[in-house]
């Protein structure tokens, strides 16, 4: 244990003044200190991607980043993806294409896909498959996730 450091985390546009140990992971700070439990923890060693959030618009595994490293940056999580009652096109596409079953890996996939498509709206199917293969899902067999992300990509480009 070591002394706590006071930091400001900006999550989905809202500031959270918290005090954390230097070793505290970003995902624990988001979930426990800021109460945003939409981001999930699947492995804590950066492989499954369930904890993916956007930090300054880049997909990041929040289990591999310390909370103090995210201070002052813009963090976006699943909790802020919808526009009020209206689902983000990516969320809607996951529903339309049955891209989720238990839903545990879903927040990570949604944030990963949104982050990548915002940066690269015309990503090739091959590159998209590479991106999506960085997260794990145990329920769906991935095909419906791939379909959903491709459909959402079209929708997002059209906006």
């Amino acid at each position: 244990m070591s002394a706590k450091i006071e930091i400001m985390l900006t999550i989905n546009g809202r500031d959270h003044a918290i005090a954390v140990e230097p070793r505290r992971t970003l995902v624990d700070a988001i979930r426990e200190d800021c109460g945003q439990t939409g981001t999930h923890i699947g492995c804590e060693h950066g492989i499954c991607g369930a904890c993916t959030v956007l930090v300054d618009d880049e997909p990041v595994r929040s289990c591999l980043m310390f909370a103090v490293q995210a201070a002052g940056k813009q963090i976006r999580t699943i909790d802020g993806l919808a526009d009020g009652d209206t689902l983000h096109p990516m969320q809607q596409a996951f529903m339309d294409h049955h891209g989720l079953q238990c839903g545990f890996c879903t927040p990570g996939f949604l944030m990963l896909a949104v982050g990548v498509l915002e940066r690269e709206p015309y990503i090739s199917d091959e590159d998209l498959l590479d991106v999506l293969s960085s997260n794990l899902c145990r329920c769906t067999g991935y095909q419906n996730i791939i379909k959903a992300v491709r459909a959402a990509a079209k929708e997002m480009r059209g906006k």
Partner: protein
Amino acid sequence: MTKPAKFIGRSVPRLEDRPLLLGQGRFAADINFPGQWHMRVVRSPVAHGKLRKIDASAALKLPGVHAVWTFADVAHIPPIGFRLTGLTALEPYRQRALASDTVRYVGEPVAAVFADDPYLAEDAADLVELDIEPLPVVLDASGPPGPFDDECNTEATVIEKKSGDVEAALRAAHQIVELDLSIGRHSGVPLETRGLIGRYDEARNVLALYGAAKVPHWNRDRLALMFGRKPESVQLFEGHVGGGFGIRGEMYPEDLLVCAAALKFRKPIKWIEDRREHLIAANHSRQQRHKIRAAIDVEGLILGIEDEFFHDNGAYARTHAATVPDLAAAMLPGPYRVPAYRAVGHMRLTNKTPCGTYRSPGRYETTFVRERLIDAIAAKTGIDAIEIRRRNLVPKSAMPYDLGFGTLGTRLIYDSGDYAKLMDKLLTAADWPAMQRDLARRRAGGEKVGAGFAMFVEKSGLGPFDKVRIEVAPSGAIEVVTGVASVGQGAETAIAQIAADTLGVNYAGIKVTHGQTDRIDKGLGAFASRVTVMCGEATRLAALKLREEALAAAAELMQTTPGALDIVDSEVVRTGAPGPSMSLAALAAATDGLSAEAEFKSSQMVYPYGAHVVQLKLDADTGGVTIERYLVAFDIGKAVNPMLVEGQIMGGMAQGLGGALYEEFLYAENGEPLSVSFADYLLPTAREVPGVEVIVTEDAPSPLNPLGVKGAGEGGITPVGAAIASAIDDALQRPGAVTQLPVTPQRLKALMAAD
């Protein structure tokens, strides 16, 4: 009265999706109570040894650490009992909440730390010093048994299933085909690890357990018994569940620890498993070695099969007891006629993580074994493998087909099936002859490509009962309350579809409540692909009763007879004649609510069946396998929601692929686990899992329930290992080359080097 289905059979969107997509799921880790303590389990780093001493003094000195428990603190809690296939012979092998004087696998709980904060609890756990004197380990379940304790050895029990005269069949055989086959150690590995919160509510004298899954009612009753409480004073609450696959929701040592600590300290106790813990502490499954032989006649017809197998159950007999070896022994024959059969399964304990079920338990294993055997018969006789299958299939005319023995307390009788028809449908969809020609041409060009085919019979809908209550509140809100559970498979949607069609309302307006022991007094939970079959029919029966009740009440209010009324789109209307109608909500308001309850009882399981085709390519340099095409045909009698069924099949196939090519829990010679992270235990990713061409057929509805439903949860995974093994043989042009799953790149390279 039967009405045309509006929802059953349609791929309507899931009721479950919206909160999950919004990040508003309530998984175990999302549940918190003020003042909660966090538990960290100290686990044995030694695979087998005498536990001499535990020194927690340094841990207890950390500020914020409240207690460190060892066996003495939980000695009053009995060992964990058996939920299925319990045999008294297995009782000495049950696991305690914490190890007493012997540790038997790396990962076995030996102490529990309770602290204010999970980081602190983990720090403290690292400071707990263990003095363990190592003992020799037993790691090979097919070798000689070793000692378990002073009285018992590691052969926990022997399972036997038989019918007919195998010795006579072997004597009469034209030829005998013999194989020695092994299946690796895999498990369900859901993306959400286990998590539990135990809480004692002083005001109501209720011990509550959050994070329950799969079998909440059974666990409630068992916890009540173990802690000497009335069942009503123990309540289990299922939240969102991040994948089940057999492993989650069984009663584990950690369930007992959080409950006991909540009772003792009067604090909410929260425990969230980490991934390393999950991979060494939660149930493993699958590992078996089969020595099988078949007696065949000159036409390649099976006269008899004799199988001796060794089931590696890890260090203890957990809640499933002998379920997996029992199912393996019972379901090995699959879709083929086996006039004489004997399977002898040795359930052995080893110094590895204890085992339970994993999706398609006993069938993934024995489908690999049986289909390898069929391929071997084809190779030995020189008759095409498809033709050998066709000759040996149980014909439709033989249904219902009694295998002559039982499993899971039921007699094994295939309720319905047209295996040959399904086989033809799949071969046509695959254009099998063209695929064969194309592959032969490519092989002639130097490519290592091949195709595999495998068939299977699944089981589903295990009884003996399920219960459903449907309520229409005076507000008009409709709720279906069940004793089953949801593990992410879409149970709420399927149940709502069935209720909606029977009642005459929209499925989207129905709330389905499950996994809450305070809402319904009993239920059997979600396992064995039973939910849609058992709960589905109970739902239909309850909805029929509710409908009758509603129409009787409405008839009085509308001054007519119930027979002249119907419910259409939530309106009570006059059949055939226009006239005033009344909404179901108004009726419920006028009658102060409506409610009906029904149970569905069934003493037999229902048996879906199917076949898979795979076409693949081997990479001689890397030992990698690329799946070029994958087809699944699966007959489930009646698909309540085809989209969900296809989702189950595709997801199951991906897991099967993992078990066939990548996933394996490995151990060092001293019993140290080597697969302790996702970097060592390789789940397939979007790169490895191919698209699947799914053919869902409804040729053989079950005669055992009016909807004809059979369970769809497992047929996606069952024959994947078998089909891939067959295709690798074909690519290598060496029948029988694959004798072991998974065919990892290392093993495949070794096979290719032997060319």
